[in-house]
């Protein structure tokens, strides 16, 4: 038997922008065992949400994560609206959908770039981030900022998209779709990319369900599961169908995210064409009543679960957030043992880890 070595992967590692440690035991070049260590990024946001007034928490929840900040803010507003429960105007629902899908587009383009970077495909990384910049510009134009949009409030949204902005959005999104399609075609057919991803980190359908995975990671293993299927916001009227691949390896996860990028752009274009006119905000009546509510939203990384408990005052009694990466980390313990040490960065990246979400 070859001698065993234990090496730390992280908390500082080039493929990880955020701190998570994986203690990897390996024999020669084969990984034998993995022990993850979490908790480097804990900020106590859930507790802080109990101290603040409920409208102020929107800005706090948006800061759980930089990439999915828009959907975190929207999810918080949705769960607090369910405490009354109150109905928001249809145009606000469409606007929330458009901004959610816009942030999904930029998140997936970012991930595709990061994957190319992890494989050493630097030019592809730059190309993906170049077209992502256009989506960020659209977000800045419509919401006011590039990252923390603060655009959703309890009872609707703060900003409207006017006709001129709508035209620019549609034109830019069509451009982005065309360019992304060409790049995705390169990424999906490139022999080097295939050599590094096909058959690496395989997770079967049964394992994925047993480990409670979610999001694109689960859909790449052949499970048709997506929170948007429930038809929240405007998804019910947009004819949404989840994208599913069956192989369950890194290549399948890349394809799912690549196709979801294009699908997100299509959903935005459809939402723009169907968006009704009207109000964008209704004022909530008083403080959130003593009640409990849950809301499940589909973030770029998977299912995000929000639970809120009100007590009749302006503060919430409890807010609980379960983020997608927390459910996807256990799959690393199945995927990594048996793989080559050189494949570890790609496999870790293939779950699209977001540690600041996980630890809050």
């Amino acid at each position: 038997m070859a001698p065993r070595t234990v090496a730390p992967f992280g908390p500082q590692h080039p493929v990880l922008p955020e701190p998570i440690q994986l203690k990897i035991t390996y024999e020669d070049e084969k990984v034998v065992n993995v022990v993850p260590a979490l908790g480097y990024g804990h900020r106590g946001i859930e507790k802080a949400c109990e101290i603040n007034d409920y409208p102020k928490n929107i800005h706090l929840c948006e800061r759980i994560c930089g990439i999915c900040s828009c959907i975190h803010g929207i999810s918080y507003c949705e769960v607090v609206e369910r405490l009354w429960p109150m109905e928001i105007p249809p145009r606000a629902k469409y606007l929330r959908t458009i901004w959610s899908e816009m942030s999904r587009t930029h998140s997936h383009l970012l991930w595709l770039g990061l994957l190319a970077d992890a494989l050493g495909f630097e030019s592809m990384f730059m190309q993906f981030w170049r077209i992502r910049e256009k989506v960020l510009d659209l977000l800045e134009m419509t919401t006011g900022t590039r990252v923390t949009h603060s655009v959703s409030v309890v009872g609707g949204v703060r900003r409207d998209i006017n006709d001129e902005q709508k035209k620019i959005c549609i034109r830019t999104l069509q451009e982005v779709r065309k360019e992304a399609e060409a790049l995705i075609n390169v990424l999906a057919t490139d022999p080097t990319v295939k050599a590094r991803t096909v058959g690496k980190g395989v997770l079967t359908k049964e394992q994925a369900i047993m480990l409670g995975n979610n999001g694109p990671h689960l859909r790449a293993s052949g499970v048709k599961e997506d929170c948007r299927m429930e038809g929240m916001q405007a998804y019910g009227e947009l004819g949404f169908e989840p994208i599913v691949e069956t192989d369950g390896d890194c290549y399948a996860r890349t394809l799912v995210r690549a196709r979801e990028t294009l699908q997100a752009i299509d959903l935005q274009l459809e939402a723009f064409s169907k968006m009704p006119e009207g109000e964008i905000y209704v004022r909530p009546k008083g403080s959130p009543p003593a009640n409990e509510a849950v809301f499940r939203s589909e973030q770029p990384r998977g299912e995000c679960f929000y639970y809120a408990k009100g007590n009749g005052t302006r503060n919430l009694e409890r807010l609980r957030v379960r983020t997608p990466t927390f459910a996807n980390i256990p799959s690393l313990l199945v995927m990594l043992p048996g793989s080559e040490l050189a494949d570890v960065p790609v496999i870790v990246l293939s779950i699209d880890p977001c540690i600041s979400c996980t630890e809050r």
Partner: protein
Amino acid sequence: MPVMLPTVIRNLFGGPATRMYPVQVREPFEGARGHIEFNDDNCILCGNCARQCPAAAIEINKEKNELVFYPARCIICFVCAEACKKDAVIAANKWRTPYYTKPVEVHVAKGKKEKAKKE
């Protein structure tokens, strides 16, 4: 790699995608959230902005007739600009430049007399 050839050719003749940043600065979008400014002439120290600020960046001192603003705490959400009914908080779309020491802005409210007359 023939599949990537159109992208390569476009990049070869397309010029750079980046700008020479400190020299060439992109104009912010019209509705972009840059920073906030205070119009002391309109401020009546009602405290709407300070109550709604999620970052506690604004403090009201009624005894001294002052509004104290901490720009380093501000998260540029513009809740104050929407809450102000007197147009005393101005939403500007240009970013603040970085600073070495955390500034503290003290604004003396001059709009109070007008309000007293109305009452």
